[in-house]
């Protein structure tokens, strides 16, 4: 049987999509056979509705359900909860090593006592990051995702159940270091904060457009290293703009504190927006 469309097999069945989606298609392609002969052929399928099923025992069951449905349900629950407690929930994403945990440690130390905070740490293994956060005095909970490459909304719901949402404060959710998978999973956050360090390429936003497109804020990290690098920060910002013209972009260094004031101001502005929300 042809692996492209299933034609040519003995169990040849012409089936059609559900009536609401009735359409026809035709295609041409060649098959090679082990016997050493080759030939090309074309054929046409006519798609009708359920009535067109050639084999009586075959039938169609309509589903029409979103694959993210379950995640989105949990995300909506989280979002409602955060609205109730006026918690600013931020989903921090980046490739591994861009400086998410260092940014959080510095932020928690510098803003200590200004508002309630909590941190959810996502990693495949270990609770090293949560320990670094707890050392600042902030409540933190580690989620080990095991083989999973991202946090999903139900994991966050569980973690918030244990930690409690910081009322009128900030919940930082540090996602698994990965610029691909976490992009599609809504956790119920107010915004995704994407970190990209200057030791990465200027073309990262173009290579991972889904993630940068989803960002509410992009933090360009480790800017204290710029004098030692051939890195064109202007090109990076232009590439961010190509995939996301609306995101805020800030340049920071957790190590020297450069630009961190603008990040704290961004946090304050977002918290004030929440306070003012009806």
């Amino acid at each position: 049987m042809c692996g492209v469309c299933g034609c040519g097999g003995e169990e040849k069945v012409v089936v059609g999509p559900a009536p609401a989606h009735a359409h026809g298609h035709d295609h041409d392609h060649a098959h090679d056979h082990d016997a050493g002969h080759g030939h090309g052929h074309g054929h046409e399928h006519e798609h009708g509705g359920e009535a067109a099923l050639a084999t009586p025992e075959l039938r169609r069951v309509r589903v029409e359900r979103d694959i993210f449905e379950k995640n989105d349900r949990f995300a909506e629950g989280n979002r409602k909860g955060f609205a109730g407690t006026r918690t600013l929930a931020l989903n921090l994403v980046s490739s591994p090593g861009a400086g998410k945990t260092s940014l959080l440690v510095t932020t928690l130390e510098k803003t200590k006592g200004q508002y309630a905070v909590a941190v959810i740490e996502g990693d495949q293994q270990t609770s090293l990051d949560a320990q670094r956060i707890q050392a600042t005095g902030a409540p933190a909970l580690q989620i080990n995702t095991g083989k999973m490459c991202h946090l999903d909304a139900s994991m966050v719901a569980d973690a918030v159940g244990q930690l409690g949402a910081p009322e009128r404060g900030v919940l930082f959710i540090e996602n698994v270091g990965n610029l691909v998978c976490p992009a599609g999973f809504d956790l119920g956050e107010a915004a995704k904060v994407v970190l990209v360090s200057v030791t990465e390429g200027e073309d990262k936003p173009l290579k991972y457009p889904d993630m940068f497109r989803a960002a509410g804020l992009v933090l360009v990290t480790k800017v204290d290293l710029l004098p030692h690098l051939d890195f064109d920060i202007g090109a990076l910002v232009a590439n961010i703009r190509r995939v996301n013209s609306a995101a805020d972009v800030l340049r920071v260094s957790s190590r020297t504190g450069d630009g961190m004031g603008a990040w704290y101001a961004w946090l304050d502005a977002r918290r004030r927006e929440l306070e003012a929300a009806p």
Partner: protein
Amino acid sequence: MHELSLAQSIVDLVEEQRASAAFARVRTIRVIVGQLSSVDPRALEFGFEVVARGTVAEGATLAIDRPPGRAFCTDCEQPVEIATHGDACPICAGHRWKVVGGQELRVVDLEVE
């Protein structure tokens, strides 16, 4: 490889269908994976094969429909087609557009016996 957990969601949806429709085997699962959905169809097929084992969906084929990315350019005020989030507007070469379609990720129906 977040496709693995999405494949699991597909299997869960199939299992749920059994509550209302009795069937022994699923032959085809028709899914829509928009071209802007951040999902790689081959990875989804691979993940599905793995997680479907031992379930009613074992051996089923994923028939994947891939609608193109559709956007509305706010500069030229026209609907346009785009392949990825980094694309320029094909009319004005700008990047100020909003996605209006192609992010779908949905199970449409099952062909069962």
